[in-house]
C-alpha cells in the first residue's frame, strides 16, 4: 500500500499492521542545522483505528441489519457505504499519523502535520506562556498523552497528540525550562 506521505522520516516502512515505534534518541540541540524530527508513537494510530472500527463497524451492522430485516435482504447492500468509509479511513488514519512529527531545536519547537492540508508551526520557546499535558480516559487506556503549547496568541495551534506519557512529561519539563530561560513576554 502506497501511503503517499511526504514525511516518512524515522519510521521504517515495514509491515503495515505494525508500524515501527518512534526513535527513542534524545536529540542534541543543534544550531541552524537540519532539525532532528521525531515521529509519533504507534499507540495513537492503534487507538484511532480501534475507534474507527468500533463506530463504523456498528454503523455497518446497523445499515446491514435494519433495512435487511425490515424491507428485504437486498436493501442490506447499503452497508457497503460505511464499510467503504471504514476501509478508506483505515488507510487515511495511517497517512495522517505518519505526517505528524515534531522537532526540538535550540530556540524553537517545530510541529509539522497533514498530508493534503499540510501545516507547519514554529513556536520560539521564549513565547510560551503555558505548556499543558492532557490525557482523556480513552487516551489513558492506551497509554497516551498530548502536549499543548499556549502563547499569548490564541491562533497558535501547537498540539502534539498521542505521545508516550513519559515523553510528554519530558517534553513538558524541557519546554518549561527552555521557556523560562528565554522568556520574552508580549
Amino acid at each position, binding site marked *: 500500500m502506497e501511503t503517499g506521505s511526504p514525511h516518512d522520516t524515522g519510521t521504517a516502512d515495514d509491515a503495515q499492521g505494525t508500524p515501527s515505534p518512534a526513535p527513542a534518541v534524545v536529540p542534541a540541540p543543534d544550531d541552524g542545522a537540519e532539525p532532528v524530527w521525531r515521529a509519533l508513537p504507534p499507540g495513537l494510530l492503534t487507538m484511532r483505528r480501534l475507534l474507527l472500527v468500533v463506530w463504523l463497524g456498528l454503523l455497518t451492522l446497523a445499515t446491514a441489519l435494519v433495512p435487511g430485516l425490515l424491507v428485504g435482504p437486498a436493501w442490506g447492500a447499503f452497508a457497503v457505504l460505511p464499510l467503504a468509509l471504514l476501509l478508506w479511513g483505515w488507510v487515511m488514519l495511517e497517512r495522517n499519523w505518519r505526517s505528524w512529527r515534531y522537532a526540538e531545536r535550540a530556540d524553537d519547537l517545530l510541529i509539522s502535520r497533514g498530508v493534503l492540508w499540510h*501545516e507547519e508551526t514554529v513556536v520560539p520557546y521564549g513565547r510560551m506562556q503555558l505548556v499543558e499535558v492532557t490525557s482523556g480516559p480513552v487516551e489513558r487506556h492506551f497509554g497516551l498523552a498530548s502536549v499543548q503549547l499556549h*502563547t499569548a496568541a490564541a491562533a497558535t495551534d501547537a498540539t502534539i497528540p498521542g505521545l508516550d506519557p513519559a515523553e510528554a512529561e519530558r517534553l513538558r519539563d524541557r519546554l518549561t525550562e527552555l521557556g523560562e530561560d528565554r522568556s520574552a513576554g508580549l
Partner: protein
Amino acid sequence: MSAPGVQEDVTGRPPVIERRLHPVTPLRRAWAPVAVLMGWAVHDPDGAQRQLTRLTTTTLLVGLGVLIPAAALYGFLSWWFTHFAVTDSELRVRTGLLFRRTAHIRLERIQAIDVTQPLLARVAGVAKLRLDVIGADKKDELAFLGAGEARALRAELLARAAGFAPETAHEVGEAPSRQMLRVPPGVLAVSLLLTAATWVWLLVAAVALPLLWTATHSLWTVLAAGIPMLGAAGASSVGRFVAEYDWTLGESPDGLRIDHGLLDRAQETVPPGRVQTVRLVEPLLWRRRGWVRVELDVAGSSNSLLLPVAPRAMAESVVARVLPGVTVPPPEAFSRPPRGARWCVPVWWRGHGLAVTDAVFASRRGLLRRGLSLVPHAKVQSVRLAQGPWQRAHGVADVHVDTGANATVTARLRPAGEAAALLHAQAERSRTGRRDALPDRWMA
C-alpha cells in the same frame, strides 16, 4: 473617594489605602428598569394598555414602595462594597456583595489605560477608568470616579507602571503631551461621505422600500424593513462622525494619547512598546485624495483605531513613531505572488504582496479597498505555514504570523520554496528581534 479605609499589611509595609468609587455610581444603572418597561410597552402596546388599566392606586403604591427602596439599597450596597487600592505593583479591585471578587491587576502588564466619559457622566463630572490587561474583565473597570480623580489616578498608575519609585509616583503627575495630529471635522465628514457602506445601505433602502410598498401596501412592513437599513446607514456615517469627532493624537513619555468624541469623550493612553500590529486601510474612494485609515492592535484592548483619516505621508510618519524603527515599505518593495496563484485566487491574487524589512513583516492585500498590515518582528508569537491540496498543485503556500493581540497577519500565496524559507527566517527574526525591545517598565 469618601471614607478611606486603612488596611494594615502583614509584612509591615506601608498600609494600602483603599478607596471607594464616586457616590453617583449607584445611579449608573438607574435607567435600566425604566428602559425594560419602555421596551416592553413599545413591543406589546395592547398588553401594556390592559395591564395599566388593571393597576389600582394601592398596587401601584405598594409596588413603588417596595421596588424603589430595594433598587436603591442594592445600588448603595454594591457601591459600598466596591473598593480599589493602588499598591506598589498592582491595582486591586474588590467587589461583590454575596460573591466576593478581588482582581489584582499587575501594573507592569498594563497594555493601555482608557478614561471615558459618556455624555451623562460629562454632565455629572465623572469618568470611567479602564485598565487594559490581557484577560481583564469588563467588571474591572472603575466606574465612576470624579473626572479630576480619574486623571490623577491614571497619572499615578502610569508613573508606577513606568517604574518610578513608589514614594514619588503620585507626585510625578501627568507626563507632558505633545500634539502630533488633529483630524479636522471637515476632513472627517468628507472621508465618511466617501465611505461606501453608507451609500450601499441608502441604495439598498432606495430600491427595496418602494418594491416592498408596491408588493404589500403595508406601512408597518416598510417601516420594519426601512428602520434597520437607515439605522445601519446612520451608524456608519453619523455614528462614526460623533465617535471620531475631534480625533487628537498626542505623544508623551507615557506613550500615545488618543482623545476623541463629540458627545462621549474618550482618552486612551497606550504605553511604549504595547502596539502589536498596525494596519493602513485605503478604501477605494479615498485613493484620489491619498487618505488612509490607520488601525492598531493592542493586547487586551478593545479600541482598534489609531487615526480615522489622514494623508498617507502623515500616516506613515505616525506609524514610524508608534513602532520605533519601522518605516512603511514603499509599494515597489512588495513582491507579488507567482503567476500560478491566479488559479487559487482569481483576479485578486494581484492585490496580495509581501515585504520583509529588518524591523517589520508587512503584508498587503486587496485590489479595491487596499490594506497593509505591519508586524514588528519582536511582536511575533508564532509562525505557521499552511498549504492545501489546490495550493500545492500550483506551488504556493500561506504563511501566518500570530501576535499577542490575537491578530494574525497572513502573507498569502507565496511560492512554496520561499514560504518554507520564510517560516524559519521569520521565527529566527522574531527570536532575535526581541533583544533590543523596550522593557515593560519603560522609564526604568
